């Protein structure tokens, strides 16, 4: 038993060391392009974003206080808007809404996604 663990750990060690030089890249993602209509349409939380957030984010079991970020109001979203977390997860990484969300809510439809993108680009105004 002892020799099994010892041999296993040595093999694991060799595998780890082999992993280090496998790949070392210095890559950067390109800048995210904004939709063209962002220049002409003024997007606000109350008019455009609130319904999207209520449908896709702040429902029971998610950003209603059940997970980090209470998005039941503009004030609740503000800390994660200011820190850039909302932009990072919703627009850049696009892992919010998550793939394990309720059926039909796993991702923002294109129109809602672009609306969110413009709102964030315009400095996420409330009114």
């Amino acid at each position, binding site marked *: 038993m002892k020799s099994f663990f010892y041999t296993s750990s040595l093999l694991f*060690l060799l595998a*780890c060391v082999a992993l*280090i030089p496998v*790949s070392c890249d210095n890559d950067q993602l390109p800048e995210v392009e904004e939709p063209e209509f962002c220049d002409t349409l003024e997007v606000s939380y109350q008019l455009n974003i609130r319904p999207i957030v209520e449908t896709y984010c702040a429902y029971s079991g998610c950003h209603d206080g059940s*997970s980090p970020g209470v998005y039941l109001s503009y004030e*609740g979203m503000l*800390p994660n808007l200011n820190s850039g977390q909302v932009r*990072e997860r919703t627009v850049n990484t*696009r892992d919010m809404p998550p793939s394990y969300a309720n059926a039909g809510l796993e991702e923002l439809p294109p129109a809602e996604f672009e609306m969110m993108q413009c709102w964030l680009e315009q400095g996420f105004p409330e009114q």
Partner: protein
Amino acid sequence: MIKNVTFSIIFLLAAFVLPAQDEPPLRIFKDTRVINTHSVEVLQKRKLDIRIGHRFGDLAGANGGWANFYGLENAADVMIGAEYGVTDRLTAGLYRSKGAGDLRALVNPFLKYRFIAQEEKGAPVSLTALTLGTISTMQRNTESTGVNSFPKFSHRMAYAVQVMLARRFNDRLSLQIIPSFTHRNLVAFEDTNDVFSMGMAGRVQLTKVIAFVADFTLPLNGLQSPFQEDPEGFEYFPALGVGLEWDTGGHVFQLNLTNAEGIMETDYIPNTTTNWLDGEFRIGFTISRMFNL
């Protein structure tokens, strides 16, 4: 690439060629971790340490408070895994963590080697090196313009290399400094692949079984550094942890507070965006159980 291979060879040679010590080394820290950072301590040969770490949600601030019972209903990060003492100097470990940054669902193998151990009548300090690799197993999203678009497999990987230099000054006080290098193969636009950081850690023995521990990690370059302003206003903060450690004989239990959300080095060093001053700190704990094999 050549540098990486050279480093790997030196690490392997050092692991098996350096002689064992005559005198038992001083215990500078009781555990192999301080709070966020590793300590200089390594496992004894043929010891297996099963370890579970947890970081809850924000205790206060906009994302904490009563709404989620002061963060206790959220999990910022969770880590589970084990490490094993291959020799008295070399520890190998493998952990799975949820991840709190751009890369999630992480598998984290590491090697930790103690080059010098502080002794009563010998070396005045201990010196240990750590290499950690992180591989994300999160689902690839081809729609994404973010890191999880994973154009190449290597983009799932990040690395951290640390050197820990520590000294036990007396029966009560131990201090450690931790220069670190973290590399991510793929980063967001205008972010930095290589992040250099300097860490500090300390332990003060309060009673026979309880000690106060603290650590601090300051990124020195890139968007993560407090000395540089992010053009998009995405703010990063140094990771600061404070905690109490109970040594109950067979295992060490630690209760801590930290603003870092991620647990692994490749996670909390480049990804800490939460600020103590905004109440964005969390309760964390680590449970460790040692087995003789």
